[in-house]
């Protein structure tokens, strides 16, 4: 939500974005045009070990978060699904089975390294015939209006520089009645949980990253970017602003993660 409201004295938008042409890269501020390449650096760097780190960092729970996302997607045979910021393709694999031979899944990501790891994984699992791979930016999706029955973005939105633009772009290419699902880290509902989680993500995550992926900086960025991401209600408001209706969210694991759902009416 841009700062249209004259009563507001805060110089940040609802997303906490500074208004001076800079944006957040974790806790640092960088020029808006630099964020994308910095994010790209992180994901080039973690791509090869991304899946194993995901399991280690979350104790495997990310699989359950994704499983629930697939249930709420309620995708049916013959439908068209876009998994944007799809990375190594966990959701795409599930959708490919559900839409069947008549349906279609597009696994899209801005990052070539992540996409390559994803494509290899899908090929290894024999999931290819109904999946297309596309390198593209969530902020400017190259599809015709009203193209998809369902769009998912899992752990991707916080990396996108202009989230409002990305949400609007997704809204445009959804069919009327189609749904968007945003799976993303969010704000834990209790303070104690929040503090435990901070200890975990700031002291342990980077060290795990160092040990397993030899890359503490990237995992420090991940922890920081999680903290800077809009909380449940802010993201809900952003989705409504982008034109989605019937917006709701589910808190998962005490709000560490939230699944937001919106419908294009």
């Amino acid at each position, binding site marked *: 939500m841009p700062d249209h409201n004259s009563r507001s004295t805060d110089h940040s938008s609802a997303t906490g974005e500074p208004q001076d042409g800079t944006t957040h890269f974790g806790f640092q501020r960088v020029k808006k045009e630099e964020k994308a390449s910095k994010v790209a650096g992180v994901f080039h760097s973690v791509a090869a070990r991304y899946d194993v780190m995901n399991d280690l960092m979350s104790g495997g729970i990310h699989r359950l978060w994704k499983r629930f996302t697939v249930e709420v997607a309620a995708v049916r045979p013959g439908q068209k699904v876009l998994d944007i910021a799809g990375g190594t393709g966990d959701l795409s694999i599930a959708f490919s089975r559900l839409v069947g031979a008549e349906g279609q899944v597009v696994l899209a990501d801005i990052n070539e390294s992540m996409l390559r790891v994803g494509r290899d994984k899908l090929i290894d699992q024999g999931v290819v015939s109904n999946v297309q791979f596309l390198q593209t930016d969530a902020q400017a999706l190259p599809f015709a209006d009203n193209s998809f029955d369902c769009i998912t973005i899992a752990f991707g939105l916080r990396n996108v520089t202009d989230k409002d633009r990305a949400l609007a772009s997704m809204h445009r290419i959804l069919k009327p009645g189609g749904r968007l699902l945003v799976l993303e880290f969010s704000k834990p509902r209790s303070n104690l949980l929040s503090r435990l989680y901070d*200890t975990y993500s700031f002291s342990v995550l980077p060290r*795990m990253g160092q040990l397993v992926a030899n890359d503490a900086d990237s995992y420090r960025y991940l922890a920081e970017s999680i903290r800077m991401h809009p909380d449940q209600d802010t993201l809900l408001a952003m989705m409504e602003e982008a034109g989605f209706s019937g917006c709701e969210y589910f808190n998962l694991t005490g709000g560490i993660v939230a699944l937001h759902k919106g419908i294009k009416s």
Partner: protein
Amino acid sequence: MADPTLLSAACAALETAINGALRYDPGSRYALARLAGKVLAVELTQPSLTLYLEPQSDRIRVAGHFEGEVTTRLRGSPPAMLSLLRSDRLNLAGSGVEVFGSTGTLEQLQQIIRNLEIDWEQALTEMTGDLAGHQGAEALRGVGNWLSGRQQTFERLLGEYLTEELSTTPARAELEHFYREVDELRLAADRLEARLAKNNSAPAPRDND
């Protein structure tokens, strides 16, 4: 309502148990394929939760969230469901289970599932016990368990990866070091929790700075 993550865990466990048994039973797989497209809702009371069983061509999908038309809906307590599941002939009268919708589908699915080699009692106790224990409890407790159950999960997951997915095996020393780190994390979390608990119960000591 339980955290959807826990419900997903229960569904995943059940799905794995059934599909694991189906893998060695082509006859049942064949029978199941003929039910593709039907949906059975199993509504448990105490703990109150609903699971959706969706037969597909060669496996079954178990979900906690389903939108769409249900072919048959069952409602009853876990023990009542269990005895219905195991009975030789589907006998609903006096079973304590209410049925809505097509009983034909139910009968076929019950036959298939009953014939599979699964230790139902154990599977169900684990599943519902887990959920009942969590329901209404603070989210924190779930996370406490989650943290303390981590190491085992790590080791199991890593084991799976080493055998199935990773071609490059991390050096043994690296792994051992990693486990030690995880242990330290757990201790640190325990200490933090103890400190926070103390702070909450006693008036905060004054700081000099």
